[in-house]
């Protein structure tokens, strides 16, 4: 079953939820993906759910979505526990703070958005700032200051907004 089918099923479920609960508008964002569903009634409620969407698409109530979503890749970080993983994109040494005396970039509970610098990874004397690339709250820090990390190693787990 392809991504299109699973998106379609999710949209169908959403429409049912909207109808059952008399919701007029539902917008779901996940990272850069967004979906917006509107029914033609005056009342409005906005709900946000973590779902893999595709490009922004607006659908009228009752219509079966015929727009074919181009096949999307599951963001690699999405895990069953709902937490998003921030992985290292290089091999090097992980530093939690910009300098020994400063505060760490983030802590458990810190809010992050895609541009938030979460840590630095040093490789060959170059300090590379690593951005969250996701929105949410730091749920877990999986590495310790000064630890050697590989490419692909999980650094943080983020509870999405």
């Amino acid at each position, binding site marked *: 079953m392809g991504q299109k089918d699973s998106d379609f099923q999710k949209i169908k479920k959403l429409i049912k939820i909207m109808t059952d609960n008399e919701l007029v508008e539902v917008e779901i964002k996940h990272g850069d993906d967004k979906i917006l569903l509107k029914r033609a009634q005056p009342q409005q409620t906005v709900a946000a759910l973590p779902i893999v969407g595709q490009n922004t698409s607006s659908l009228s109530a009752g219509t079966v979505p015929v727009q074919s979503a181009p096949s999307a890749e599951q963001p690699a970080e999405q895990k069953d526990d709902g937490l998003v993983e921030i992985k290292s994109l*290089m*091999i*090097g*040494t992980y530093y939690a703070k910009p300098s020994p005396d400063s505060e760490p970039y983030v802590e458990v509970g810190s809010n992050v958005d895609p541009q938030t610098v979460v840590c630095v990874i040093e*490789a*060959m004397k*170059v300090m590379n700032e690593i951005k969250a690339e996701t929105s949410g709250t730091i749920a877990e820090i999986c590495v310790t200051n000064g630890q*050697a990390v*590989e*490419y*692909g*190693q999980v650094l943080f787990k983020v509870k999405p907004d």
Partner: protein
Amino acid sequence: MFSRVLIANRGEIALRIIRACRELGIESVAVYSEADKDASYLEFADEAVCIGPADPAKSYLDIPSIISAAEIADAEAIHPGYGFLAENINFARICQECGIVFIGPPVEAMKLLGDKIQARKLAQKANVPVLPGSEGTISNEAESLKLANKIGYPVMIKAAAGGGGRGMRVVHNDISFRSAFGAACAEAEAAFGDPRVYLEKFIVQPRHVEVQVMADSRGNALHFYERDCSIQRRHQKMIEESPCPVLNERAREELCNSALRLIKKAKYVNAATIEFLLDRDKNFYFIEANTRIQVEHPVTEMVTGHDLIKWQLKIANGQPLEISQRNIKHTGAAIECRINAEDPQNNFAPSPGTITRYIPPGGPGIRIDTHVHQGYTVPSNYDSMIAKLIVYQKTRAEAITTLKRALAEFVIEPIKTTIPACMDIVSHNSFAKSNIDTSFVERNF
């Protein structure tokens, strides 16, 4: 001896180096890209670290990642294998600057011999015969045309920064020279970042004969005899053997000694291969120097009984070559077939995928250098060579018999491999008589 060495490579050569380290009591650190994460040879290393995604530019060729891996894994030295960063001057220099031993030549020697024009000039100074050609780079088309005529067609326009069969064009007359010249410079710039080209006489149907040399940091240099690598397709070697079947002892000595003169002149350290062309009259001409260990090194190991990778590690560790030239003997005959994941029936198109049935040959006289096994998935991102089948017997005729038996036993399925192509070549009458040259494969298959 080093306590830890990082291997900046993958596949069979990474495993080869891991094995040599193991026997020398050196801890090995293997690096891998995501495409190689399930490779079982990684388990033989003492440590394995992921350095990047499948794209070689972002992993095996990514200098900061390799250096970073060496730093975090505490490796004192890096063995670059062959290909990838093995002849990258920048990489060798950065290792030096970071206090990591580069297992290979010093930067200066690599620069000197790596530049084809400089290497050619050095060869002339060392009284090593070179092909008639230009004195350095050619830039003026009119002058070059005159020179081409003086040398006599056919000539070859070669990139100074090229090598390994790349960046070369054969030209047969004035008309084609004009169009080839501009194109060759443009290609050289695009492929190697260096537009310099030079001219050399093109030998029709030569044999490719190369000498294995090794030098230590005290100026001692030794040769380990020659290899005949004339079985090539599109400048890629398919089958290599030692000794060269058509050299007599005197010619062998002259050839090998000239290789030694060259590396001494270059103040070279560690392993190198000096390549020559042999014309129909058995005159030899220097063409290029490879400042690294080569794919076909096992052939030399079989006939001399020396472990060349161990020598590389020892030399890099500062140990001297404590053997004398007269104690290096060659006995018997060895032949290597490169087995590639390619379809010979389909123009040698790459044939990656999972090997569900793998049965290697065995018995007397057989050596297999490979990282693949049953269940291994050959990735599509890298070189297609998956195994080297090396046979060794007392005579060349016996080696060919064993080779045919080995190729017949060798099962790699369902991906396509060059095993049938190798069988066709070694079964050919001309191969048995060694009546071959570098055009043999393309003419007959």
